[in-house]
């Protein structure tokens, strides 16, 4: 789960990680009130959406008077912000963060993520703040400092020294502030089961202080159960409504732009099914994993969600039953045809646990647009052919 910049900064402040002062606003009036309360004389008006690249997209602007705050808040609130991370459809801005303008001397980069190879969190820092870190990694990898921290022993002095000397910070007082900053960030990463924290830029002010000018945080979904305060930060308007509806039924759904709807059990097989459809000259309309506990109701729901997409010309149901029993899926397909108007050909491949019973169920039901397939290759070929005929 991801949160907004202003929420990340609330967490930073709780742990003593310095940030500029700011207040969230939902309306133009509120924005102006907040600006008055902060006092100025310079403010930054920042669109709050779950995507990077907001500045380049026109969602972050500097105001030098309360009138300008009003103008900019009016402009940004309600705009559809398009950045390289939102996709061409962009995202609607519903909140703006009004923040004190900062005296920027240097821009740095700092993040904490899990290093899957080292199997421990890693702190990454760079002097190339404000730039896309992927570009830095590609063009000047030597400018990224990586420090792995073993949680069994925690953040040590040498972690801090590697960071500050790597960043070329020589002033003693500044070194101390930076080490303190990184240590607190590591602590809040661990204590909140974060998946990633990224501060880009982290600035050094004219007076030698370090401030988190931006803040991104993502959390381990599996650990949200023990963090009700974080769960409460969830902004459902940032999530795809179809994906969210699917999740409520234990389905994992992602819309794509092709023509063949897919219903598969297991994420790996679901991706493999999409790959096979592509390989045979078709295009998948979605990724849909029905999970390990699929039943008639969830399968019917899956059909409903797939068929909401007007581009779908055929549906390929590909189930290899392990925990999932094929007869349940077969009944689900029958149920779905009663509940939902399934107006496209449905190619069904059921293998594994109770596949025989499932085949009988479908055969006896004798539904016109249900086509049986013998294996993955056969099913994908039939689905591609059906979509082309439609």
């Amino acid at each position, binding site marked *: 789960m991801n949160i907004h910049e202003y929420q990340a900064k609330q967490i930073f402040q709780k742990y003593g990680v310095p940030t500029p002062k700011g207040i969230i606003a939902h309306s133009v009036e509120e924005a102006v009130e907040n600006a008055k309360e902060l006092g100025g004389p310079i403010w930054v008006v920042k669109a709050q959406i*779950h*995507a*990077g690249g907001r500045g380049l997209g026109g969602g972050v602007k500097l105001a030098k008077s309360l009138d300008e705050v009003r103008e900019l808040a009016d402009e940004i609130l309600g705009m559809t912000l398009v950045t390289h*991370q939102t996709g061409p459809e962009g995202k609607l801005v519903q909140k703006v963060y009004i923040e004190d303008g900062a005296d920027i001397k240097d821009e740095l980069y700092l*993040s904490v*993520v*899990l*290093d*899957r*190879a080292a*199997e421990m969190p*890693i702190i*990454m820092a760079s002097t190339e703040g404000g730039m896309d*870190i*992927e570009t830095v*990694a590609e063009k000047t*990898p030597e400018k990224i400092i*990586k420090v792995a921290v073993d*949680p*069994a022993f925690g953040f040590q002095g040498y972690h801090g020294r590697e960071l500050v000397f790597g960043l070329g910070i020589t002033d003693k007082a500044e070194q101390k502030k930076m080490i303190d900053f990184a240590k607190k960030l590591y602590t809040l990463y*661990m204590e909140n*089961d974060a*998946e*990633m924290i*990224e501060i880009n830029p982290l600035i050094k002010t004219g007076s030698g202080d370090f401030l988190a000018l931006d803040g*991104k945080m*993502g959390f*381990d979904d*599996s*650990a949200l159960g*023990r963090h009700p305060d974080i769960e409460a930060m969830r902004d459902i308007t940032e999530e795809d409504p179809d994906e969210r509806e699917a999740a409520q039924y234990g389905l994992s759904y*992602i819309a*794509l732009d092709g023509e063949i709807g897919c219903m*598969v059990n*297991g*994420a*790996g*097989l679901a*991706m*493999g099914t*999409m*790959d*096979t*459809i*592509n*390989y*045979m000259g078709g295009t*998948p309309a979605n*990724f849909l994993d029905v999970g*390990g506990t699929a039943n008639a109701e969830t399968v019917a729901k899956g059909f409903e969600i797939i068929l909401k997409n007007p581009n779908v010309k055929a549906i390929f149901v590909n189930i*290899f*039953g*392990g*925990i999932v029993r094929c007869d349940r899926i077969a009944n689900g397909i029958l149920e779905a045809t009663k509940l939902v108007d399934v107006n496209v050909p449905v190619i069904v491949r059921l*293998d*594994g*646990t109770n596949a025989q019973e499932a085949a009988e169920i479908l055969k006896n039901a004798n539904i016109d647009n249900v086509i049986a397939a013998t294996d*993955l*290759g056969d099913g*994908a070929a039939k689905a591609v052919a059906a979509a082309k005929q439609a």
Partner: protein
Amino acid sequence: MSILINKDTKVIVQGFTGGEGTFHAEQCMAYGTNIVGGVTPGKGGQEHLGKPVFNTVKEAVQATGATVSMVFVPPAFVGDAVMEAAAAGIELAVIITEGAPVRDMQAAKACAVKNGMMTIGPNCPGIITADECKIGIMPGSIFKKGNVGLISKSGTLTYEGANQVCNEGYGITTAVGIGGDPIIGLSYKQLLQMFQDDPETEAIVMIGEIGGDLEIQAAKFIKENITKPVVAFIAGQSAPKGKRMGHAGAIISGSAGTAKEKMDALREAGVEVVVSPAEIGKAVKKVLS
């Protein structure tokens, strides 16, 4: 022969009396797995599925001599359960549970390594040595005995791959689902070496997916150490780019973990790489004939 487990392996089940634990322990026993007991705190002294229940793994190991544990406890307790197994001298923990917090698995894995315990999973279908021992949730009937070893991140692709291998007239020595979580136990490298050393395994099927760089590491390892033919499929060639806020995770290894990159690396290592999982069986036939 096989790797890691066989008909003599003594297995306990952690989370024995729960719904999932009960159902799958029963299925494993029906397959022939030598389940010698289970652990459910507070139910020690009872009998379940005709086997003794213990309060702690330590007691279970002392009483039964078990060396392998199949872990079915709920996600929030997985870290604790794995550490308990490691401390009790279990040699291999097979962690089936899905949804364990990453931080817990990080600690559990470090603890397992320190105690010399191997782990498989979490969030995996488990491990099966055909016709001898099944520790997991896979449908046992599709795994016919043969000469192909299988390693997969994905559960259902394990079944798909094994089924195709068997339909081509070959069979499986051992199949291992390693799971696709950020922190996992045994990975391609260790398992590839075990299959290389297993005299009955003549070919290896390796199924990977997008994300991380385990497959890239495996490709390097194959090039240098594996002489048996390897067939590979990488799922997710057509997957959209992750809808994440940032991409900080991908740059650590200097790679984005795309399917193409992994497939290229494996091809370069001499692996028979298939573009569709529907081709796994045929590719195995090709490398074995």
